[in-house]
């Protein structure tokens, strides 16, 4: 067992080291969420006005944008395994005494750590867009962001576990990540949209993550996901995300071990 822990730490350590050295990547994962926040905020903000009592469009969108930063960073962890395979470094890892399962777990832990750092930086924007934030909010957010980023890293790794080229990964990213992003309630509440859209959104684990984060910021009355007549609270949603994460990560580890 100790070898699994050593593996997780060594692999996560390298992910962090790379993150620190790779400045462009650090900024690129912020760019898209911030562009969305500014452009959609300016574009729809005046048109929509109040989303719900006391919540304007930017305030509604901001928690989702925070989750989007985490989504981008986490799923990109999958590309790191494709990258390692393509550039040969994976061989160095596979021929070492490190545990195979630990390698993927380590990648997920590394990605989650990076995602949380990125998320924390995004919190600086909260006061600018008039979203209330205090120590309690931050402490409640941490476990949520951790669960969400581990789960989404699991998804990224599942996609990357067998992929041989980065081009292939990019294509799958477009096909999986963009729909996941738009069907997650970042930009519009999923209650009151067409039924097919609502069903797809409810199948998307990101939806639950975003709804929970939004409730932390704006209060439980903004809860927007109802499953079988039950309005999902913060803890309910966190459990859904965690379960999805366990499925993704287990499948990723299984697929990776079978392959190599």
């Amino acid at each position, binding site marked *: 067992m100790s070898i699994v822990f050593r593996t997780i730490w*060594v692999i996560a*350590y*390298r992910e962090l080291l790379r993150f620190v050295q790779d400045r462009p990547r650090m900024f690129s994962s912020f760019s898209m969420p911030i562009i969305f926040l500014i452009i959609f905020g300016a574009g729809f903000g005046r048109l929509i006005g109040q989303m719900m009592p006391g919540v304007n469009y930017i305030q509604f969108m901001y928690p989702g944008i925070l989750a989007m930063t985490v989504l981008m960073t986490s799923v990109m962890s999958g590309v790191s395994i494709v990258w390692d395979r393509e*550039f040969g470094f994976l*061989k*160095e890892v*596979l021929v070492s005494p490190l545990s195979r399962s630990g390698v993927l777990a380590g990648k997920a832990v590394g990605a989650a750590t990076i995602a949380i750092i990125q998320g924390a930086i995004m919190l600086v924007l909260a006061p600018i867009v008039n979203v209330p934030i205090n120590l309690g909010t931050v402490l409640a957010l941490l476990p949520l962001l951790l669960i969400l980023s581990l789960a989404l890293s699991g998804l990224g790794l599942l996609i990357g576990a067998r992929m041989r080229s980065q081009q292939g990964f990019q294509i799958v990213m477009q096909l999986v990540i963009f729909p996941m992003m738009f069907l997650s309630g970042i930009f519009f509440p999923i209650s009151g949209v067409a039924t097919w859209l609502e069903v797809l959104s409810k199948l998307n684990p990101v939806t639950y993550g975003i709804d929970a984060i939004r409730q932390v910021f704006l209060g439980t009355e903004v809860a927007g996901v109802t499953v079988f007549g039950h309005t999902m609270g913060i803890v309910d949603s966190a459990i859904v995300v965690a379960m999805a994460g366990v499925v993704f990560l287990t499948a990723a580890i299984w697929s990776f071990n079978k392959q190599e």
Partner: protein
Amino acid sequence: MDVIEASNLVKRFGELEAVKGVSFSVKEGEIFGFLGPNGAGKTTTINILCTLLKPTDGQAKVNGYDVVKERSQVRQSIGLVFQEPALDDYLTAEQNLRFHGYAYGIPKNVLEPRLKELLEMMELWDRRKGKINTYSGGMKRRLEIARGLLHHPRVLFLDEPTLGLDPQTRRHIWDYIHDLRKRENLAIFMTTHYMDEAENCDRIAIIDYGRTVALDTLEKLKDGVGGDVISVKTEDNEEAMRLLEGQYKLKPDIENGIISFTVPHGEEFLPKFVSGFPLRLLSIGLRRPTLEDVFLKLTGRNIREQEVDSMQQMKNMARMRRH
């Protein structure tokens, strides 16, 4: 003691039988060469020995551990340098080595002096804080050798250690390897398709189409050719071939207009041959056999350097360009 024992290794990939029953053993402290053309099964054999592939049949032990049943012990006790670079380009040399040290669980008080020793030996200490994407091909290879040795393995596997390097760098790498062997009493198992490089090995296994066709010391392999190699060029090579086969009872080969054959005691043969041969000779030469001749004699074919997989080279170049 034998550090590697392989018996009847077989590896099939679907229909393709890449390794067809290879057996050999490597002694402690020797440089063992695995020589053969590309596609002969060299890398597959290395991958089986270092636990990256499971053999379809047969058995192998490395440092006394079974490569199928005791994989993590095998991994802990060997060092490996792959054919293609396996470094993290975005990290520095030092960071790459530290990663390796942590992965193999080397205690810090052992790791730091060892890291310095190896980087100094490979003349990379001054560049230790440089990122790998600023390194040349030869520097990368040296760093990989240093990394392969970091955890004090008893066997070092080198898969085509000088592939794609210029001749000067290749010679340099060989100096390091000889130096290493003296210092660490380490067994080195290496594959190569460069005949001249195989001459650095204590013993050589020649592998062709997944089988070992010979295994011996360099001298014995050369003696097996049957004497010295004479090469001649005449004004009528066809007639000369007929004469050599008929009258002289030799087995001549012809390539690029030069006829070559082996005779025992070449120095004595040469004067008699020159005065007695009926055709006009344009040139004549005598030399000791090389591994090239050994290979030709054993397989009936030439091992050629253009056999370096051209696709692979293109891939490597594309990779280099990307950085």
